[in-house]
């Protein structure tokens, strides 16, 4: 070895960095012949800059970030693998949960909590002349932002007019809620579970309720790396797939929780990490790792809806440039039969019907029409 790593990957301390952590620690990268340096990054903006500029070859990344960077011409990032489904959730402070319960005792009961009661609380606060509620997400180009905005708007709360939306890094969410600086947030695991365990807030809707098998993080790779070193990329995908399958297996969860709880990985309470792992997050099974074009198109529809990108872009062309299920498929099929579930890939790869909690149909062939049909959205061309 020359002392240099073959591959430099970044991650953010969240439960869904597990496939990368496991690939490194359990030796899957090494078995695929790769020496990988994994660096813990402090912010999504730094992840974006480093992958765009070539200081990292790839990273654990918010799926919409790969699309936003490529669309803005800040860099060229591909998503050849989805790291996970589910894990994020909307959590509100105890005070806000109490206000919702006071307005409608049944509002927090049942399997699906909507924002309709919240709309009443918002209106009552406005009538009393109180300041708007503050909600936090982790980054503008994130599934968390679109999930929270969609959920609020579905209940009649305009995320730009009726509440204040701010960006707060994941590890600071719980302390900011405890301090009363935010009334609600949408963040990835383990921070919703941490808020509940510490008695700071109450989770209202999880990603798996919001959109079963919906998108979350991807492995975002610099396109120039993928072009220059296709064999290393394939080996990397194989290692991460094997690690993701390992992380899915219930018999490995105890080890995984112990690993992720360490300060050099996620650094949170083991119980909080265990909760989303056992009940929510899927890494590999049922084709969870496949970067689905339908997911990308839905994300672009929300970027358009909220004025983050101009409505005259070609969503299909952008998503096909970034989302690379072909690379995933090639790597998965060459793992067969070492990774048994790779065989079920063709079944899993059937076009997915996107079914969000409100049952509003999403036709992936018409994302623009979908985006402009929402009652609450930003007028065309005016950013949020």
């Amino acid at each position, binding site marked *: 070895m020359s002392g240099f790593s073959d591959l430099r990957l970044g991650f953010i301390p969240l439960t869904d960095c597990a496939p990368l952590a496991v690939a490194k620690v359990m030796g899957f990268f090494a078995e695929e012949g790769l020496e990988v340096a994994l660096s813990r990054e*402090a912010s999504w903006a730094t992840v974006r800059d480093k992958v765009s500029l070539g*200081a990292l070859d790839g990273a654990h990344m918010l799926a919409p970030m790969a699309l936003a960077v490529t669309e803005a011409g800040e860099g060229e990032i591909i998503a050849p693998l989805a790291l996970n489904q589910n894990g994020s959730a909307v959590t509100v402070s105890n005070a806000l949960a109490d206000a919702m319960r006071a307005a409608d005792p049944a509002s927090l009961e049942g399997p699906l909590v909507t924002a309709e009661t919240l709309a009443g609380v918002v209106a009552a606060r406005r009538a009393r002349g109180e300041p708007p509620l503050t909600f936090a997400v982790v980054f503008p180009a994130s599934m968390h932002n679109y999930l929270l905005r969609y959920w609020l708007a579905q209940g009649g709360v305009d995320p730009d007019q009726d509440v204040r939306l701010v*960006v*707060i890094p994941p590890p600071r969410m719980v302390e900011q809620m405890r301090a009363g600086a935010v009334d609600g947030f949408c963040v990835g695991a383990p921070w919703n579970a941490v808020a509940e365990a510490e008695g700071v807030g109450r989770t209202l809707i999880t990603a798996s309720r919001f959109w079963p098998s919906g998108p979350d993080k991807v492995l975002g790779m610099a396109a120039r790396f993928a072009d220059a070193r296709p064999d290393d990329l394939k080996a990397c995908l194989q290692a991460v797939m094997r690690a993701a399958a390992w992380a899915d297996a219930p018999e490995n969860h105890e080890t995984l929780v112990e690993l992720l709880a360490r300060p050099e990985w996620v650094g949170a309470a083991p119980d909080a990490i265990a909760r989303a792992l056992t009940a929510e997050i899927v890494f590999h099974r049922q084709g969870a790792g496949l970067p689905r074009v339908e997911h990308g198109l839905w994300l672009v529809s929300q970027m358009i809806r909220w004025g983050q990108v101009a409505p005259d872009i070609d969503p299909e062309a952008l998503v096909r440039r970034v989302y690379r299920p072909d690379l995933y498929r090639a790597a998965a099929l060459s793992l067969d039969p070492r990774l048994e579930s790779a065989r079920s890939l063709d079944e899993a790869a059937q076009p997915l019907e996107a079914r969000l909690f409100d049952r509003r149909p999403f036709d992936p062939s018409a994302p623009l029409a979908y985006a402009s049909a929402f009652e609450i959205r930003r007028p065309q061309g005016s950013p949020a």
Partner: protein
Amino acid sequence: MRVLVIDPDAARAALVAQGLEGVQPLEVRHAAVYVEAEVVAFAPDVVVIAAESPDRDTLDSLKESSQGHPVVMFVDRSEPGLAEQAVRAGVAAYVVDGLAPGRVRPILDVAMSRFALTQQLRGDLAKAKADLEARKTVERAKGLLMKERGLDEDGAYRLLRKLAMDRGKPIGAVAADLLAFAGVLRGDGA
């Protein structure tokens, strides 16, 4: 000059203050983390932040809003190439650590002027888009007048200009009104 240094380590704020010695008036404030109320109250001219701070995402999300600030970022020497590449690509003002006090002033000046330029370009772009939109509206209103009133292009434009002067409104607004009323008369949206 009002400078906010966001860094768990107070040493960098001291270094920035040292580098700005002689600037009047000057206030350098150190904060371990970004606290919105404090930042709004302080209203800094420029923010200095360690690139490894999680608060970067908050600052990044504000860059296109009226709450945005010029931001200077410091990176460790252990990140070879990042600062040079970032500056070359123009994405952000990354500065390599080990900063000599003598370099502080020019770096902050560059960050502030670049920020002002970006804000101006963004404003210009928005204005150019609005102008283009107004011109398209005027063209369509002209076409309508030519068809409905049998005017030539010049006559249609003069009529629009007269309407604008009579009402004390911009010609684009008059053209938009005309098109909207024509739509109502045709039964659009009724």
